[in-house]
């Protein structure tokens, strides 16, 4: 069976929350059939690599199979948090979209459950990618 590499946002959506210097990012499967693939491919290690430049001290993944959702908690990625960071986006509100840019491999049998159209050039060029 053939497969295709797509960005995670084709298979899932998510939102960032912040408390102090800690960010949490949800990843919600667009369809239950995509859930096992997300569990397999969207790992703590890959997410840590995607955020390497923010130097997370820890990345923890929590699984919620009933909701076909996972919650990533990234410690110390906000340069001190909303009151200390120099970033325009001191909450890190945009970080969900960095995670949703992660490449995943989707077998053809599951492609009907992806959202959005195929975009061959959707990935930024190296070195934006760390995965």
């Amino acid at each position, binding site marked *: 069976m053939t497969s295709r590499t797509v960005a995670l946002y084709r298979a899932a959506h998510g*939102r960032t929350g912040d408390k102090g210097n800690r960010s949490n990012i949800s990843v*919600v499967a667009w369809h239950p059939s995509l859930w096992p693939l997300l569990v397999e491919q969207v790992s703590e290690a890959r997410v840590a690599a995607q955020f390497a*430049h*923010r130097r997370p001290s820890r990345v923890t993944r929590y699984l919620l199979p009933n909701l076909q959702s996972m919650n990533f908690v990234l410690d110390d990625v906000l340069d001190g948090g909303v009151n200390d960071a*120099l*970033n325009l986006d001191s909450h890190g509100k*945009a970080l969900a979209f960095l995670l949703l840019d992660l490449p995943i491999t989707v077998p053809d049998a599951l492609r009907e459950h992806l959202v959005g159209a195929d975009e061959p050039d959707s990935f930024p060029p190296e070195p934006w990618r760390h995965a």
Partner: protein
Amino acid sequence: MPGPTVPLRIGCAAGFSGDRTDAAGPVVDALVAAGGPSFLIFETLAERTLALAQLARRADPERGYEPLLDELLRPVLARCLAHGIRIVSNFGAANPRGAARRIAALAAEMGLAAPRIAVVEGDDVGGLAQRALLRDALGASADLDAVMASMVCANAYLGADAIADALLAGADIVVTGRVADPSLTVGPALAHFGWRRDDWDRLARATMAGHLLECGAQVTGGYYADPGYKDVDGLARVGYPIAEIDADGHCTITKPPGTGGRIDSHTVKEQLLYEVHDPAAYLTPDVVADLGEARVVELGPDRVRVEGVRGHPRPATLKVNVFCEQGWLAEGEISYAGPRAEARARLAAQVLRERLAALAPLRVDLIGVASILGDDAGAWLAMQPPGGARDVRLRVAALHDDKAAAERLPREVTALYTCGPAGGGGVRTALRQRLSTRSCFVPRDGVPARFAMMEPA
């Protein structure tokens, strides 16, 4: 007590200080049309908001509550009082009594019968009486004395008990300072259903109902839209949420008919996990909520029910946020456009780095190239190969303890007008006092939460 088939409706008309002030009207219309017991909540107190309110109160002792209080309440106060829709909000911020006095005055100005207004107090642990408690909670650190000396405020996150007590005592309006956001919902549910205060499962379900409500439109399609992927109709007139809570605490999230936005399993899941860390242990002052077995069920258009939330005993401690005045944040921006705009912006950044090398670590952003996903140290920006962006805004920022020193940054950015690369324009600069924050935990019995019914003027 009404039978189990009559739900309690709680509408939320604000999700932060600065939220829309015309959101409450359609929510109140829907609550009136539904009949039945109902409450209206406004959540207006993000982490930093309370510190800003405390600074406002220092400048004027009668201020320090939500600046948009009048704008939030005036459109709906008469109808809420006329229809028995009671109001619960943390818009008291650093001065709940001041807010209560203002509400009483507003009601009088509007010719309304004086509402019974209660304030919830005890969250402020920054006073002399609790200094020892706070020092213990902050623990030994090299800068403890500096923290205590520069403290703007220290507030504990109170729970729902005092809110429920105020409602049981007959309050039409309950004004709080710092409480956990979901407690604004748990308080009314506790008072209405008469649950035991250790009924952990019901408290946890109501807590998650409150969690879904507390950010206003974030559960009804706000902060969700992504064209082509997550389309939301009528985003410009997005409706704010109403939770229908049953006697077991389970909730169904809805919104007023005719409003824009969208509620489905996906909008609810995104908000359910918003600002959650371990989903099996969502800590609040009222209960530890457990989402491990939670499910969401789409009952129909814009109607989603949440089931399966469980609860565990509440924590023995309360979280306290401490804010300190600590230095100055200096920022400056300048734009470059047209051919070689990015190269000119990068040169301007290089000039500023050289000129400000001795000041403080400088954050550099190239807006239009790389500005948001990067880190303060600049590792991300350094990874971006120079490109040909033709519309770039350079932004620099730095922190400094001394105001006079911090002022050098805006001056250097402004000087780029004549000393920098060609064609720079649109300089904007800002210098703001910085509020730093830290959290600690204090024993629950060190923070006596209580309510007081205000006497009519």
